[in-house]
């Protein structure tokens, strides 16, 4: 956790908790990365769904992921009109492939200097409280 207080996250950034994502968000407030695994094909996915996007089966289970992954790609956002991002630029947003096959996250890497961003670096999930029910998943490089 970065130590920021809950009240610093604007309410309009906080998603409505859709039923299929309830388990995921419940995990985030415990600093656990919960992802779905398909019992039929064995692959994982994120964001949460009712059926596996890889094979279509609805025989899904929740697992706690290690939180470790690899940057598949990234960008440095240098122009953003929406608060609070307009004051945070430049910042890194990355696509992270988790160790668990099939699951890809999109997340900020707020502590990573833009010049240090690179495809292939190893990262770890961290949790940023946004409300009583939601913590945002970020990724950091101190694996």
């Amino acid at each position, binding site marked *: 956790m970065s130590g920021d207080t809950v009240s610093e996250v604007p309410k309009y950034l906080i*998603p*409505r908790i*859709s039923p299929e994502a309830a388990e995921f968000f419940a995990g985030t407030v415990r600093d656990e990365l919960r992802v779905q695994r398909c019992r039929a094909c064995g692959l994982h996915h994120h*964001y949460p769904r009712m059926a596996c996007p890889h094979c279509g089966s609805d025989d899904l289970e929740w697992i706690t992921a290690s939180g470790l992954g690899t940057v598949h790609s990234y960008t440095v*956002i240098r122009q953003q009109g929406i608060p609070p*991002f307009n004051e945070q630029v430049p910042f890194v947003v990355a*696509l992270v492939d988790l160790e668990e096959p099939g699951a890809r996250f999109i*997340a900020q890497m707020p502590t990573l200097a833009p010049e240090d961003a690179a495809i*292939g670096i190893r990262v770890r999930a961290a949790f940023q409280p946004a409300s009583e029910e939601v913590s945002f998943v970020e990724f950091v490089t101190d694996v």
Partner: protein
Amino acid sequence: MCVVGVGLADGPKTPELSALMLQAQAFGRAVADSGLKKDDIDGLASAGYGGMHEVQLAEYLGLRPHWLDSTSCGGSSFEFHALHAYRAIQAGDVDTVAIVYGNNELSAAGRSLGTGRAGGGGAAAMPYPMSWEFPTGLTLIGAYAMAAQRHMHQYGTTSEQLASISVQTREHAARNPHAMYRDPITIDDVLSSKLVADPLHKLDSCVISDGGCAIILTTEDRARELGRPMVYVRGAAAGMTHHSIQAMPDLTVTAGAVTGPKAFAEAGITAADVDTFQMYDSFTYTVLVCLEDLGFAPKGEGGPFVASGALGLGGALPTNTDGGGLSATHPGMRGLFLLCEATRQLRGEAGDSQVDGAEIAVAHGSGGWLSTMGTVVLGTEPA
């Protein structure tokens, strides 16, 4: 099926015109261009507004169509419309279809489309997939940027190569008096323009303009009666891979890898037969990846291909000969303008931008975040 009429609304900046006015202006000009009467049109397609927009537009135009297509899947919607109209006209369900788009994007909404426009209800009101991206601060251009970054990593594509697309497109725009930006630019100009989302700069990005476009499609028999230069639709295909960039299966391959070969096969052509390419250039990377996906360059070799000058008027594949979205016109969605410019080229009506002897033109639309793709092959002869 043939394209028998094309019309462009005023632009690139028309604060005195509403979106509906721009649509009606383009429609009127396309009808006049075709030589048809308004009441000959029995099908209508449009996209981008929701809320029974096509029905409102038909009423505004005084049409009573019995065929409507409201497929709205981003900037490539109009290639989907052309595909659907092609099949419906082939089947005899409809005789003559107008596809219409227009928007006062610049005057009404300003330039914030790609870099964070405040969403009305925030994350809680967003479509479910986007509710996972919005809190990260990702922008529209940021989604494309992540795809471009991956292509560079895998294939060694460079910012200079991407910039050469902007430079060549601006050379085309210089010949189009209606283009938004016409002054020549260099690769250094692109690279020294503001970095918006690494690796994409401001000059890797399309403009935001006002504008409108309409095209009229009808049967070959009716087209022949009109006595205008014949422009045939020879093949078309459409598809998608994802909605949000987090779910794109491969950041370096779009649905164009399917739609291109499928449309080319129906048209009885190969990539080498194409005389001019009209490609939705939302960003330079969109052009590069689709050049590869449609087979104009092998996968991974789009960079050297564009850097060779291929996209210019004397190049191997003159592309976006009206100055494209990068320099000329981009009123929110551009897919329909591609079909218009392809038709003008095949009719020999492209003026200073004319590709000599153009017989095959391809329009390829991209929608969303490299999400939806549609390819239409046009020719001066039937397939």
